[in-house]
């Protein structure tokens, strides 16, 4: 789970597998009148080391406005020594750290919580992770990443001079999760409407929005499916997208309209968007950058864009 290209060694998939990293799904609780209550993570999608899910309270008393959120979990490395020395990611006498990075991009806040340290002589090492978020601080979703970082570079031998040497540098992600706090956790803003006589689907794109600043959310961008249309049932929106070729076609076409609309309104900011600069977190431009860089959509022409979006859904649904 390496983070990005860098000039020094980072955690590779091979090293990640070799260190025997094991984690579990986090436990979420909240405090009500000095008593702690469990929360449920619903609709888990993925494994303990990479998943998303929605937080739900069986007592219906937890709201992010009025209650805190405590997240705890354990994680373990069985062969930490592999991280050190020539074949690792830090010099033999360096100290690595494990930390929990959290991001609540809709509330414009992020932070990092140091958890513990690792040195070469550690074999099996277990960490207890705990984070408490005050009421009124989280919005949208809470992204959690357990990261490995350079705590102390130590004294590198000449052969180890290629390792990162600045303390605080992030060397890799051990696990990641996204807990949805508000809303349904849907990646795309899709709603159903009831408009007899109108088309099966339409795209709303707010022409007056600033795609560099304004959010990729239903205030500015929305895919609207018309319940009143005779073919609505054929969309089978409750089935998975792989079981509904019509739904796949609609979503692919709608996303193409969104990307093309954003391109139009971005104008000369289009290229900076593609290079990952100049936009706000959660903005339409950030979503476009994600489509292009992470999902590999080809924006070189409308034909290529349509094809690459369809290919993406064919492969991933």
């Amino acid at each position, binding site marked *: 789970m390496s983070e*990005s290209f*860098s000039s020094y060694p980072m955690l590779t998939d091979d090293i990640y597998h070799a260190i025997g990293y094991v984690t579990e799904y986090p436990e979420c609780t909240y405090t009500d009148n000095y008593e702690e209550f469990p929360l449920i993570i619903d609709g888990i999608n993925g494994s303990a080391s990479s998943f998303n899910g929605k937080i739900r309270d069986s007592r219906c008393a937890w709201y*992010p*406005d009025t209650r805190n959120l405590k997240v705890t979990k354990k994680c373990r490395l069985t062969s930490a020594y592999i991280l050190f020395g020539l074949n690792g990611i830090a010099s033999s006498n360096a100290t690595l*750290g494990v*930390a929990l*990075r959290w*991001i*609540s*991009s*809709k*509330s*414009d*806040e*992020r*932070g*990092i919580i*140091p958890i513990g340290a690792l040195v070469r002589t550690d074999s099996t090492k277990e960490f207890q992770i705990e984070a408490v978020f005050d*009421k*009124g*601080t*989280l*919005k949208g979703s809470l*992204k959690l990443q357990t*990261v490995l*970082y350079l*705590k*102390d570079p130590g004294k590198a031998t000449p052969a180890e001079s290629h390792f990162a040497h*600045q*303390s*605080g*540098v*992030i060397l890799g992600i051990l696990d990641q999760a996204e807990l949805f706090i508000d809303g349904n956790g849907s990646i795309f803003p899709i709603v159903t409407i009831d408009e007899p006589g109108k088309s099966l689907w339409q795209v709303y794109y*707010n022409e*007056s*929005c*600033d795609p560099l*600043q*304004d*959010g990729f959310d239903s*205030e*500015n961008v929305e895919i609207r499916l018309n319940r009143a249309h005779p073919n609505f049932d054929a969309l089978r929106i409750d089935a998975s997208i792989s079981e509904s070729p019509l739904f796949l076609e609609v979503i692919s076409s709608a996303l193409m309209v969104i990307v093309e609309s954003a391109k139009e309104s971005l104008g000369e900011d289009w290229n900076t968007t593609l290079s990952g600069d100049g936009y*706000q*977190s959660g903005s339409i431009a*950030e979503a476009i950058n994600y489509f292009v860089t992470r999902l590999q959509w080809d924006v070189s022409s409308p034909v290529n864009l349509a094809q690459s979006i369809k290919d993406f859904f064919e492969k991933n649904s």
Partner: protein
Amino acid sequence: MDWIELKKDSAQAAFDEYFINRKIDPAPQFAELRNDLCMLFDNALSDIGITSEEISQKNNSYQLDLLFGIKLYSTLNEKYGMNVRYAATDGIWRYISVCVVPDLVEKRYGLEHPDRFWKKPKRLWLRVLWWYIYLSWQGSEEETYNVLKDNSTDEILQLVDRCGRGGYRVDLCRTLMRKNSELDPGERRKNQIFRKMLVLNTARVQVLEPELSSGGNKGYVDSLYEYFQK
């Protein structure tokens, strides 16, 4: 407080209406908030010793932003339950800006800047003030004022505009603001040190977490400053 969120198109319509008839008619639960904000605004003007016609002269606009901003921040938080979650909700600020105190935004910016009323989320004047104070907060109004008193509107823009991917690192922002206040005001302005430190920070946080570096946020901020002293 039962906040109201205003969508962008509704905010534009409300702003257009205010533009024509100057009518201010907030929902009943906002009447007290309106009174409070108008009073805080007037108090800030009288503390600076100016009238609303003199806001745009000299450094008055920053002094108003600072004095009014600190009181706005404290009053909204303590009396009306404002928190980060609400403060990050654009629709809430659009409602306050366009329906509760559009006259105050007008006095500060005139009506030719819809960005400050409803158009650009990160430029809404009242939202900007709240976040400027929140990201600079030093534990009390007095301490915060002391750290910000020699700044200008440029620092507000630089700080609040650079949210960064994922959001603000709040403790880092507060450490940066303290460091900036310790520098000579003349040198700061001449060399644009604050802006340079923020630009360098944006590059560095791509690969490291300041809080995890040796010396923590303070050591990290010192290193940002020292980089430009070589």
